[in-house]
């Protein structure tokens, strides 16, 4: 028997699954407000907002935060430029070995981070490149490019049909075609790809561990922080920041790529 409505059992399973996925996140938020700073005891003995102030005062948070923002920004910009160029090339031309190259491009995201990290690390040592912010950025760019590429290539394929010609046919010059047809169709895909890339870079740990020298990005700082039981709720406060910094772009990306885009309509 088929019914359009989910059965009760399925609903319970779905709700259970969602709770399992999301309750831990809620706990992280909760423990940012606990009065107990040594262990995660449940329920929290009391609630306070003091940890936000403490976190603000802590000098050691700022360098990792800046580093993470900097790395994510540069890696995203790099990925947007290179990813768009690659996708334009892949979508518009057909050449021998195109499918294989396409696979090679998306490989970095399919490979386990440890492999990417290891290979980059050995490559850097072979080439005598000292570990620095730039080695982290390069590491992140490898998978950020894939994200942008994936978003853009799908859109390019849709565009490579007749709509650019249709625009010219209706009397538009190249600039108008770029402005009114290409950009609105590609723009949202690029923006979405960029947002996702930023979010991915911002909380990346594995590749960063392999490619960073003595520096810590924010996620690595958090990992180190959790090991020693000192002002633990501060870590939770930072977790909320990380959550916001990654969740908001992902949410925006989701709305940008959902269905047809509404942005930059003709001559609004």
């Amino acid at each position, binding site marked *: 028997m088929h019914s359009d409505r989910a059965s009760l059992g399925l609903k319970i399973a779905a709700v259970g699954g969602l709770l399992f996925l999301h309750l831990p996140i809620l706990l992280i938020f909760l423990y940012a407000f606990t009065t107990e700073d040594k262990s995660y005891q449940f329920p929290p003995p009391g609630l306070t907002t003091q940890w936000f102030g403490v976190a603000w005062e802590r000098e050691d948070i700022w360098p990792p935060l800046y580093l993470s923002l900097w790395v994510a920004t540069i890696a995203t910009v790099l990925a947007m430029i290179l990813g768009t160029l690659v996708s334009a090339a892949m979508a518009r031309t057909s050449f021998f070995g195109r499918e294989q190259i396409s696979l090679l491009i998306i490989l970095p995201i399919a490979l386990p981070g440890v492999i990417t990290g290891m290979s980059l690390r050995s490559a850097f040592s072979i080439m005598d490149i000292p570990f620095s912010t730039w080695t982290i950025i390069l590491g992140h760019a490898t998978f950020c490019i894939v994200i942008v590429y994936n978003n853009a290539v799908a859109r390019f394929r849709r565009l490579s*049909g*007749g709509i650019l010609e*249709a625009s010219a046919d*209706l*009397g538009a010059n190249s600039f108008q075609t770029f402005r009114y*047809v290409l950009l609105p169709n590609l723009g949202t895909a690029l923006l979405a790809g960029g947002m996702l890339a930023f979010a991915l870079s911002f909380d990346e740990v594995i590749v960063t561990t392999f490619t960073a020298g003595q520096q810590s990005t924010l996620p690595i700082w958090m990992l180190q922080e959790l090991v020693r039981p000192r002002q633990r709720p501060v870590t939770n406060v930072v977790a909320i920041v990380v959550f916001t910094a990654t969740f908001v772009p992902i949410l925006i990306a989701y709305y940008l790529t959902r269905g047809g885009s509404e942005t930059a309509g*003709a001559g609004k």
Partner: protein
Amino acid sequence: MTAAVEFLRVSRHFGPASAPVKAVDGVDLTIAEGSFFAMLGPSGSGKTTCLRLISGFEKPTGGTIRIFGQDVGDIPPNRRNVNTVFQDYALFPHMNVRDNVGYGLMVKGVDRRTRDTRAEEMLSLVKLEGYGDRKPAQLSGGQRQRVALARALVNEPKVLLLDEPLGALDLKLREAMQDELKALQSRLGITFVFVTHDQGEALSMADSLAVFNEGKIAQIGTPAEVYARPRTRFVADFVGSSNVLPPEVTRAFGGPLKWSSLRPEMLRVTAADGVALAGTVTGIRYLGAGSRLSVALNGTEVAALLPAGQPVPEPGATVGLAFDPSALHVMEGEG
């Protein structure tokens, strides 16, 4: 009568000069202003390339193209007074129907209010009033086709190019749109250049048609001329379902020793005795309005149309074939 479009020995070859793909090869044609001109031919015969030569998306590798007397060799697509209904419609997915239709006016700098009014007019012309706010994705195939038509007509082109515009529609809708397109064309008086691989469509809609074969024009003329007097075997085969008779059979039918064509509807099926031509029935296809017999005759399959109500012979039976000798059309060329 002015020529809307003229091709003078126009060629478009692709690929290396040593082994070119001759998509269009030495085509001469004249399309009269205000006429409904069809380009008919099998897939790959160069019809789309011809349209793209007119719209300017392809440049000829040889010859001259004139639009209303003007050599358009150096005029880019956006400055030709020609618009296209693309095969896949190519509607702008991010714009609603109204903005799609008004696009041609927008890029000319027409203000929003005027172009919205014009877009609504065009939409009512193609019977899509009230669809302005929809996105192309929310329309059926037939509706998209109408939007593409409205969008191409908004600039009031002198020539409208249509590349297999009805190819993606189902039969019923296709027939309705054929009538509508034809009516629209006579009403607007615009020159339509209509590409199709469907001979029925070309014959029923066109004022004149060109039959394409491998980048060349096999025949050009009115539908009646092309149908009744195919110049080559290819045309006879492709346009309609004519019997193409090799020289020996033509001779047997009382003609010269040349290739000829004979329409199935011109053949009468009679009793086997007392006629010069008799053959064996090898197949019968019921068509509703009659039956189509295949008759093996001196080794050649000949089709004959049997009107409804006549007794249908059994397969394997021997039947006679009679016809009016004037119906036998002897062809000039072979290929």
